Structure formats: structure tokens, C-alpha cells
């Protein structure tokens, strides 16, 4: 009984800000008053508020860019990482473990160690503030994890599959593309979801490497709504923007929860 009581009290405290978010993101933009923030408004203006955030901060370009980054980069990343894992494990690359360490080692660098050279290098190479530059960087960041999970996955696949396909005369590329890639679908999907979420929520690389509204990722653009002194965004508009841009990762995660758990389990068991 005490356990339930503690959980309920703590839960109510935790629900408070969530409640405030929902209630105030839905009230008409000009009717926010901190004194009556707890009282729901009769009007439901969530979509209008989000629309005015999109319009005011020109979010439509950054939403499209972010969608592009968070889909294309993880796709490229998992295929490149899977190919490396396949080569190391199945094609038995010489010194394969060291190649694996080299690729996986890319995960340990804090982003602060990358910012200055990326900024200077991107400016010199004409990649600063470009979608191609962002896709390139996000892809590189995805490769180590993809390589790690897929190397583990392929270690658990019977080698006889490869031998049989070789007997039938299939090329190594064809075996990768038609056999190994499809059988690792759940592992690929799990990595994809993690990377999608990482890119969708990224703030610091967007802050450092982009400038224009069209290229800037949406989290960086949203942070601008907050931090830009001149923005003066009404509270309900800001809340609606924060709420709606958080939805894609939630929906993706809920929709693929099972697949996700299964994929990671496969990646680690073998």
C-alpha cells in the first residue's frame, strides 16, 4: 500500500509539467498567462500554434532537411557498416579484428573534439551549410555502431550459407546484397532506429555546421526559438513546436518496439 502511495505521489509530481505542456500547447497563442496556466482553455489551438511556429521560424525547410538526414544517413550508415562487418567476418579479411577496432573506435570521440576541424574543413571544402555535408557527417557517425552490431550478427550466421552460395557461383557482392543484408534485417532496423533518433535530436552539429533555415536541422532551429532574444515566441507556440517535433521519434519507437528489442538481442547474443 505504501509502495503504491509513493508511486502515485511521485507520479503526480512527474505528470505536472507534462500536463502543463499539453494544456498550454493547445491554448490560443495570445491567451497564455502563467497565473492560469493550470486551467485548460476551451479552444483547441495546437495545430494553429504549430503552424505559426512553422511559419514564424520557417520550420518547414528544416523539417524537410531533418527528415532527409535522419532517413538517408542511417540507411547509408547501416549498409556501409554491414558491408564492413560482412567483409571482416564472412570474407575473413586479414587482420579483421584490427579493422573492426579501427571502425568501432570511432564511437569514443566526444563531439567537442570534432567541431573545430569539421567547421574549418567544411568551410574550405564548400560543405559548410550544405545538406550533402550534413548527410556525410551523420553517415560517418552511424558507421561504427552499425559495424559493431552487424559484425556480431554475422558471426552467428552459419558459414555454410556462404559456401553454398559460392558453389552456385554467386559473387561476394551478390551474396552480401541478396543473402546477408536481408537476413540481418532486424539488426539493421534496430541500428536504424537508434541512429534515426540520434540524428533527429542532434543539436550541436546543426549548430556548428549550418546557418540557413533550409539546411539547419529542426532541433537546432527550435533551440533558436528559445535562445534568440529577438524571437519573442509566445509560450503556446513554442510548446506546440516542441511537442510536435518530438512525435516522430516516439511514433517510430512505439511502432517498432518489438522489432527493436529483437534486433538488439540478435546483435548481442551471437
Amino acid at each position, binding site marked *: 500500500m505504501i*509502495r503504491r502511495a509513493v508511486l502515485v505521489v511521485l507520479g503526480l509530481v512527474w505528470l505536472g509539467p507534462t500536463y*502543463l505542456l499539453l494544456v498550454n500547447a493547445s491554448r490560443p497563442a495570445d491567451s497564455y498567462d502563467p*497565473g492560469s496556466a493550470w486551467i485548460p482553455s476551451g479552444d483547441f489551438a495546437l495545430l494553429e500554434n504549430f503552424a505559426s511556429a512553422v511559419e514564424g521560424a520557417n520550420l518547414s525547410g528544416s523539417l524537410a532537411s531533418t527528415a532527409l538526414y535522419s532517413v538517408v544517413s542511417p540507411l547509408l550508415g547501416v549498409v556501409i557498416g554491414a*558491408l*564492413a562487418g560482412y567483409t571482416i567476418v564472412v570474407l575473413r579479411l586479414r587482420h579483421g579484428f584490427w579493422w573492426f577496432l579501427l571502425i568501432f573506435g570511432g564511437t569514443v570521440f*566526444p563531439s*567537442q573534439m570534432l567541431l573545430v576541424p569539421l567547421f574549418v574543413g567544411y568551410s574550405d571544402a564548400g560543405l559548410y551549410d550544405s545538406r550533402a555535408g550534413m548527410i556525410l557527417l551523420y553517415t560517418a557517425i552511424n558507421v561504427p555502431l552499425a*559495424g559493431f552490431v552487424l559484425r556480431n550478427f554475422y558471426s552467428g550466421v552459419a558459414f555454410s550459407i556462404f559456401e553454398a552460395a559460392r558453389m552456385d557461383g554467386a559473387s561476394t557482392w551478390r551474396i552480401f546484397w541478396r543473402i546477408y543484408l536481408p537476413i540481418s534485417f532486424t539488426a539493421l532496423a534496430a541500428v536504424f532506429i537508434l541512429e534515426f533518433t540520434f540524428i533527429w535530436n542532434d*543539436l550541436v552539429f546543426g549548430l556548428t555546421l549550418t546557418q540557413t533555415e533550409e539546411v539547419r536541422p529542426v532541433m537546432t532551429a527550435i533551440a533558436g526559438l528559445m535562445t534568440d532574444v529577438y524571437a519573442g515566441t509566445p509560450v503556446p507556440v513554442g510548446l506546440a513546436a516542441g511537442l510536435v517535433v518530438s512525435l516522430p521519434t516516439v511514433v517510430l519507437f512505439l511502432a517498432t518496439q518489438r522489432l527493436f528489442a529483437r534486433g538488439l538481442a540478435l546483435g548481442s547474443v551471437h
Partner: protein
Amino acid sequence: MLGRFRYGYVAPAVLLVAGLLYAPFVWTAYLSFTRYDGLESPAWIGLDNFVKLFDDAALLTSTRNTLIWVVGTMVLPVGLGLLVAVLSYDIKGGAWFRVPFMLPYALSGAGLAMVWSPILSHDGVANRLLGVDTAFLQDSPYNTLAMLLVWTWQQLGVNTLLFVVGLQSIPKEPIEAARLDGASGWRLFRHVIWPLMRPLTAVVVGLALVAGLKTFDIVWVLTQGGPGRNSETLAVTMYKETFVSSDYGYGSAVAVMLTVVTGLASYLYLKRQVTAT
């Protein structure tokens, strides 16, 4: 035949990682020994940037704040997460009791700031609710503590989830045996459940340690390290020195320091965990 393509197949992965992760890493390490503004070429100045680190009042503040973040994230979201997990993992409808804690996890850094800034602002909800007039995000180190509570609000759920999974997978027999022997409540937790949960807790605390050291997003969106520079963390200081003050060399030195501290802390922590078990 096989051998010809092998290197071509790992090449994309190796080139991407080497070009966009390793090379910048090495380049930043080099820049930390130079004076560099991004325009003229870097000039070698030896250890000057690192000497300056020890003589910089703002850096002292941001080191202290980072320390608060590290200790705070290791204690609050992890401790409360464990509490909620232990209270809810074996009661009927436990998952429903956990819903309030899971919801905030859906918000990312920027969304999080959107929710809390009207609550914590001068004329905000928190002041009215508590009947006080506190500038939550003004005075140091209270602004760091306030942000730490916001962080706890968001992170508690995921830690709870990890602990629940852990609790549900520990063997039932020792707990049943202890129950038969009359152990319950705190004693059951302290002497039976806790020892079984230690390895998982070590992982969760380790993750919190690294995350705490790298704190950036939430500070950037809520205070940008201000007012003045009093809520900066090392990661924020690095960003500001580089991209606000255009002191790339000094910014790189802060990045190197952060990396060394993170590496050292992780190493010592791992070593302690290994010797402890």
C-alpha cells in the same frame, strides 16, 4: 578473386570514420597547442593554452558545474529510477504506475527547454505555485541545480525501464528463500535484491558518468551558459570559446581537457568495477 574486393568493401567504412572522426580528433589535439582564430594559419605556442586553463576563472566555474552535473546525474536520475523500479516491478499494473515517468523521455533537449522555461521563468508557474519569487535560472550554482532537476525529470523513466528489465530477470529463488526466512521491505532489498542488481547498476551509473561529463544540450537551450558565464559546463565553454570568441586554439584545449577527464574517469570507474566484483 575473393581477396581483390575485400579492401574495397571495408573502404567506405574506414574512409568515413578516418576522414570525419579520426582526422578531426587528431587535428583538434594539434590545434590545442596553437593560437588560431580560423583565419590565419595556426601558430604553435606550446602549452600556453593549457597553462591558461588553470588560470581562467570562467573555466573554474564550468569545471565546478560539470562536477555538479556528473555527481547529480549519477545520483538523482539513477537513484530515483531505481526507487521507482523497485517499488513497481512486481505489483499488479506496475507498468501503468510507470507511465508518468516514461512520458517526459519522449521530449528531446530543445522540447525539454520549451516545457521548462515558462515554468522556471521569473514570472513563471513554479514561483506562483510555491508562492515565492526565486530566479531559478539566475544565481550560480542554483541554476545548475535547477537544470539538474529538469534533467532528472526527463531521464528518470529510461533508468526505471532499465532497472525493471534487470529486476525481472534476476533469479526468483533467492528472493523467495529470503521471503520465507521472513525478510521483507528494506532488508529484503538491501541484502538480497541489491547485490543481484549491482552489475546492472554499475553500467547505468557508468553511462550517467559519461553523459554528465558531456552535458551540453540542456544548458545550451535553457541558459546558453549564462547569465554571464555562470552556468557553463565544459562542453558549453568549449563551444563558446571557439564559436563565440573565435579562440579556436583555446577551445580545442578545453575539448582536449574534457576528453582526457572523460577517458580518465571512465578508466578509473571501470577499474573500480572490475576490482569490486
